[in-house]
């Protein structure tokens, strides 16, 4: 392609060029007899030229097809790993556990154990199950879940200190944990650990589901024979209890269970809560700043050097790689301001992400403010409103739908960000629910990164289930943005 052509060479006013163009053949041969074959060849060439054009046009539409195919491949790839057969084995079957509870705890021999779900058992019943199957480890559970003293002091400290905040019988207060017996440990467990945690504990510690092998959805659909062979081989070999089951890795337990080293029971509870916390604080931080900056630039600033510097700067910040924000957050929020943020906390993550989406928030808010017709401002000033009164009572309400839509779009940018949080030092293995801005954190994308970077298929399946959750969150955010825009529009302009 001739770059000299840029801008002015294809000059419509140049008549010579017109004769230089395609129909030259006719001009050179004005007489009929000779012109005919030439006209013929011109037509032929024209057909060729047209054909070449349409081939290229097809290629161009193909580029979009490639993009669509890539999207479809992505969707397929995720769904493929998120569902499929798994070969699992339990150390103890859940029905056996339920049966134990029915017969030994409830003295109920008539109910069929298969009809009772493990998750519906009461806390004290679950504690009894733990005692039945894992009696030597009861103290470990108490230490892990309830102890408030350092692990090495746990066995020597009086219960009054080690279990401060938990409920136990008064006469135990001065004894140590080793002075009690199994029945009393069971009582402490059942009285203090929430039921859903006990269910998880029983699942991991008693039932001990293990996933032996995983198949993708495609394999599950097309190659059941091989899968069954693998099952038979397992049952006849090392794993007599192995069971084949079709598993949706995305399920309720996945959503409500914390991270675990056992992929069979690992979930995204902590990451979801972390994402929720981080998003709330991020928006709480960047919404006022973003709207404020947009108001300043749009409603107050004169066209002076400072304004220009701010605008240029915002434009360039939008192009800074997100990992750089991570380095900023690491050295400012995590290290320098550790006294305020307590280091690698939800607060540090939120502030970093807040700065990251600030340019988007400002630009979107500016656009929303620009869309407010000047007549709204004039009307308000004409009634004797001051500048801020005009902004607060007229301009902002009119711009709000646009601002909120922009905010949601900023949120959907933040919710998928991984790199800066990785750089901040998001926790890679966190089982405790975040309790506030100063908790250590993990978020959904970090969890996805973690699981993806592990080599086995089981973790990949977990990653894809988490991806589905993330994408559902994103889609709902966008749907909310669209819905909000329309609802406001209907309210204001019937």
């Amino acid at each position: 392609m001739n770059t000299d052509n840029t801008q002015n060479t294809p000059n419509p006013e140049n008549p010579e060029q017109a004769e230089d163009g395609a129909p030259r053949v006719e001009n050179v041969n004005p007489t009929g007899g000779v012109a005919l074959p030439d006209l013929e060849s011109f037509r032929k060439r024209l057909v060729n030229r047209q054909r070449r054009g349409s081939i290229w046009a097809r290629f161009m539409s193909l580029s979009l097809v490639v993009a669509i195919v890539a999207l479809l491949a992505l969707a397929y790839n995720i769904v493929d790993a998120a569902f499929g057969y798994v070969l699992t084995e339990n150390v103890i079957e859940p029905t056996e556990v339920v049966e134990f509870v029915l017969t030994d705890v409830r003295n109920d021999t008539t109910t069929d154990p298969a009809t009772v779900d493990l998750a519906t058992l009461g806390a004290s019943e679950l504690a009894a199950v733990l005692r039945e199957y894992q009696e030597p480890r009861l103290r470990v559970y108490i230490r892990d879940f309830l102890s408030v003293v350092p692990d090495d002091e746990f066995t020597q400290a009086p219960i009054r200190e080690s279990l401060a905040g938990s409920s136990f019988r008064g006469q135990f207060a001065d004894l140590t944990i080793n002075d009690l017996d199994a029945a009393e440990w069971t009582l402490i467990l059942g009285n203090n650990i929430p039921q859903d945690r006990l269910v998880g504990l029983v699942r991991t510690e008693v039932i001990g589901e293990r996933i032996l092998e995983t198949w993708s959805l495609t394999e599950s659909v097309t190659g059941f024979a091989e899968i069954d062979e693998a099952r038979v081989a397992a049952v006849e070999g090392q794993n007599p209890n192995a069971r084949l089951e079709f598993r949706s890795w995305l399920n309720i337990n996945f959503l409500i269970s914390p991270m675990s080293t056992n992929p069979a029971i690992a979930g995204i509870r902590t990451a979801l809560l972390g994402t929720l916390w981080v998003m709330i604080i991020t928006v709480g931080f960047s919404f006022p700043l973003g709207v404020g900056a947009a108001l300043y630039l749009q409603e107050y600033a004169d066209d002076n050097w400072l304004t220009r510097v701010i605008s240029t700067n915002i434009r360039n910040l939008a192009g800074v790689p997100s990992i750089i924000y991570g380095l900023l957050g690491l050295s400012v929020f995590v290290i320098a301001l550790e006294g305020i943020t307590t280091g690698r906390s939800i607060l540090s993550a939120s502030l970093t992400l807040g700065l990251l989406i600030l340019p988007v928030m400002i630009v979107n808010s500016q656009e929303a403010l620009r869309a407010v017709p000047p007549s709204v401002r004039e009307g308000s000033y004409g009634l004797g409103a001051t500048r801020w009164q005009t902004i607060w009572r007229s301009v902002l309400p009119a711009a709000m739908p646009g601002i909120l839509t922009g905010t949601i779009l900023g949120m959907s940018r933040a919710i998928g960000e991984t790199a800066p949080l990785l750089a901040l030092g998001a926790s890679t293995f966190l089982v405790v629910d975040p309790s506030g801005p100063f908790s250590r954190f993990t978020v959904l994308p970090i969890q996805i990164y973690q699981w993806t970077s592990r080599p086995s298929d089981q973790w990949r399946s977990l990653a894809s289930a988490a991806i589905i959750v993330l994408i559902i969150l994103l889609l709902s955010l966008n749907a909310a943005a669209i819905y909000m825009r329309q609802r406001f529009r209907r309210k204001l302009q019937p």
Partner: protein
Amino acid sequence: MESEYGAENEQSPPAAVGRQPGPVAAIRMRRDADLAAALRKRPRVGEMIIRYVLLFCGLVSIFTTVGIVIVNTTTAIEFFTVDEVSPIDFFTNTVWRPAAYNPDATYNPGLIPIGVLPLLYATLFTSFIALIVAVPLGLGSAIYLAEYAPERVRNTLKPILEILAGIPTVVLGYFALTFMTPLLQAIPGLNVQIFNMAAPGLVMGVMIIPTISSMSEDAISSVPRELREASYGLGATRFESITKVVLPAALSGLVAAFILGLARAVGETMIVALAAGSAPADLLNNFLNPFVAGETMTGHIARITGGDLPYDSIQYRSLFAIGLTLFVSTLALNLISQWVSRRFREAYE
């Protein structure tokens, strides 16, 4: 109330003659007894405070930039001074292995090779692969959308590109590692490692298609209609008009789009962090081989900060030297892109 009003009315006779003052006028009339005073400009303290608060909000973005620059340069300077890494060595040494640093030993270029070249090379190489994918595809779809697609088709296809643009990059990293790499490995005759630069490069290419496409489409649609018509008038086919007239005219806009796409690829982290591996590229034995692992600058920062790194160490400081390199190069790319596209716009406005 009545009498008050009556009394004051005499001091300001013309205004309210005959009109029964309503509640608002009543409030005001009391003040308007001394109209000069009532009209006098008083400092509206609240308004002023608000103005400065808003100005502060605007300045936060400046603080952010200043913060980024200061944080990266100071730590990078420490890296070059405290750790005594020579900048020349940093930018020319072909091996990267700061992990071999022993806190007791002093820095020794032979023992602790600390050249950023392998990381820079992997960054540029993956980005280059991305551009090879994204330039034809992004440009092709832009031309199709701007010149060929009927309105209805455009309205359905553009959201698809927007969805593509909105996918979190960690998801694309997953895609590169679990789909693209196995796909490449399935090609007979290629010796593709599990971690390689080709797969993340290709996926980054898909990632920047929307960026390139939408910017290119803007550039193409802002070429004046007359140019096109002139070309048709000379007997050119639609395709010929596009390649010989429209694209050359839009060239600088397109270049701006490609550069911006490049900047995004250079700064992209998660795709390469997941799929390009954690070993620095081996410049000496495997130069320009896309099927071997090569950690990029971004991937390296993410991996090292993600681990438990001591904050007072050469590794920590080296990250900021890399960060500064990264920041400066993406900023330069963005500025060039803006400059080129501004020149393009000036040509037509």
